[in-house]
């Protein structure tokens, strides 16, 4: 190597410094939230503010656990997010597979059209859906079905695109061998491709789950009944009932974060591997 040891060391050092600074910026607000959620109300209102509590208390969490957030909103979020993520991965998986493995007339144009749907602002669709859904009474009769349909349709274009590129990264020879050995295309898809594409499909699932768990606009616009609301909308409503009790508010934030953060930490290896290898290569 031409570069001297000293330059290399300096490069490693500066890399760690900059990455470290940004990592701290990313995690510090979350740690502050966690710290605040264990403070008694008096310490929330201390001036100058303290980062960590001097006396730790679980009282804010007690208030969250007895609220509608736990009783209705988080279970609703779970149903909507799981339902739409599973449905999207299945439907986008079938479509992505067709685009990746078959040549047929109009394939390119159809892919471009589906990608083009990503350019439609979320609100553009929500206004008519709001009207149609209230005309048909869907808000009252099947709130979960409605939200799952909206999320699935919203997530499909991106999911098809990304899952197709995961399929593209799997060599076709493996399936070809299975087909020659007498597998039907559907059997090949089920026994060969799905296991191989597993990491990619899981990554697609995680992307969808995070997006739908965090979705706010459609939910706040469409869900009016307290028993139908989801976690993000419930938290937004906290602003009114707990305006000054920031410790309760932050405890609610932590409770809402837990499912996605845990899911992300469990799946992170598979997720990063799929995102870095298969997808998004132009």
């Amino acid at each position, binding site marked *: 190597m031409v570069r001297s040891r000293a330059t290399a060391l300096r*490069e*490693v050092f500066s*890399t760690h410094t*900059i*990455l470290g600074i*940004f*990592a701290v910026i*990313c995690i510090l607000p*979350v740690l*502050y*939230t966690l710290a605040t959620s264990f403070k008694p109300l008096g310490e929330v*209102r201390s*001036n100058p*503010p303290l980062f960590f509590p001097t006396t730790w208390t679980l009282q804010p969490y007690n208030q969250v656990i007895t609220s509608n957030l736990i009783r209705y909103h988080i279970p609703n979020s779970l149903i909507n997010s799981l339902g739409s993520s599973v449905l999207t991965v299945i*439907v986008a998986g*079938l*479509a992505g597979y*067709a685009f990746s*493995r*078959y040549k047929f007339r109009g*394939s390119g144009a159809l892919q471009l059209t*589906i990608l083009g*749907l990503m*350019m*439609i*602002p979320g*609100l*553009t*669709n929500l*206004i008519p*859906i709001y*009207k*149609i859904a209230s005309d048909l009474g869907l808000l009252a009769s099947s709130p979960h079905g409605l939200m799952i349909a909206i999320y*699935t*349709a919203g997530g*499909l274009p991106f999911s*098809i695109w990304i899952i197709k590129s995961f399929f593209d990264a799997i*060599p*076709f*020879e493996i399936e070809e061998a299975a*087909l020659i050995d007498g597998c039907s295309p559907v059997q090949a898809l089920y026994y060969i491709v799905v296991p191989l594409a597993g990491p990619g499909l899981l990554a697609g699932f995680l992307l969808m789950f995070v997006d739908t768990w*965090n979705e*706010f*606009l459609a939910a706040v616009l469409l869900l009016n009944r307290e028993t139908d609301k989801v976690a*993000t909308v419930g*938290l937004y409503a906290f602003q009114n009932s707990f305006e000054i009790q*920031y410790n309760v*508010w932050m405890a609610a*934030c932590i409770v809402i*974060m837990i499912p996605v*953060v845990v899911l*992300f930490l469990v799946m*992170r290896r598979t997720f*990063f*591997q799929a995102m*870095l*290898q298969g997808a*998004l*290569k*132009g």
Partner: protein
Amino acid sequence: MATNTIPTRTAVTAARSIRSGGRSSGRATKFLPFWLLLPAILILLAVQVYPTLYSLWLSVNRIKGGELIFVGLQNFDTLFKDLNFGRSLNRTFTFAALYLVFTVGIGLLLAVLLNRRVKFTGFYLVLIFIPWVISDVVAGTIWRWMFQQSYGILQYWLQPLSDRSLLVNPTTAMGIVVAGSVWRALAFTTILFLGALQTVPVEVVESAAMDGAGGWQSFLRISFPIIRPTFLVAVLLTSIRAINSVGMILSIMGTTGGAGNATMTTALYMLNSVMRDGNLGQAAATSVILFAFNLVLTFIYLRLATRRDTV
């Protein structure tokens, strides 16, 4: 991290040629792609395409007592005469420009650093991804709390700059909203760029360094042209997200956008048309205008993306 082998271009092309030549047998196979695509197409037609067309129709109507009354371009006329709408467009452009520059710029910087494959890369990546996992509303609530007038910790740390809450001043309010949004969006551009940078052959970069090319020079001459398609995709997705984003702005600053409507962007203006005024026609007209901006961006993107292919 990467343990599996990445299929090379040639392998993929070889597979494609087998596929197109070797499998035209059977009627079932012929229609298989159609059946595979059918569920996606049906869902998209019903819940994406139809509502969008309906939205175009709503934008030239007014709703009275549940009935649509055709009013032509009146909704658009009202919008363009409303000073608040014009101001909201300005704010959207300010927000989008700042958000784009920082999200793409910092994301690229972090990706380049992570691509040096120093120790703890995976650890840094996980920490950078935590804000992305958190919802807009949760993140907005946290940022609002950090800048709270008397008890917020960032407000306290930044006290030398301003005694009053930075959320009250229109300029700093916009700054906080941008900072919070960038904070949450950073992970996505980082992973996009990192994925692209990993396709840059290490040998080429090393031999350029042997020939005396500096870090910047080798990045601009070798790495950047290779990741250019990803760069364009990232710019497009980020700017569209910027134009349409509401959740973060709403939960930091409230529905009115704070003092002097400092952060009342066009998307928020549209949400107010629906939720406060119940004026669906006007909201639809606003959404059509936002859609038009997205189309222009996409058009520019396609021009830039295809120009590269012909070079």
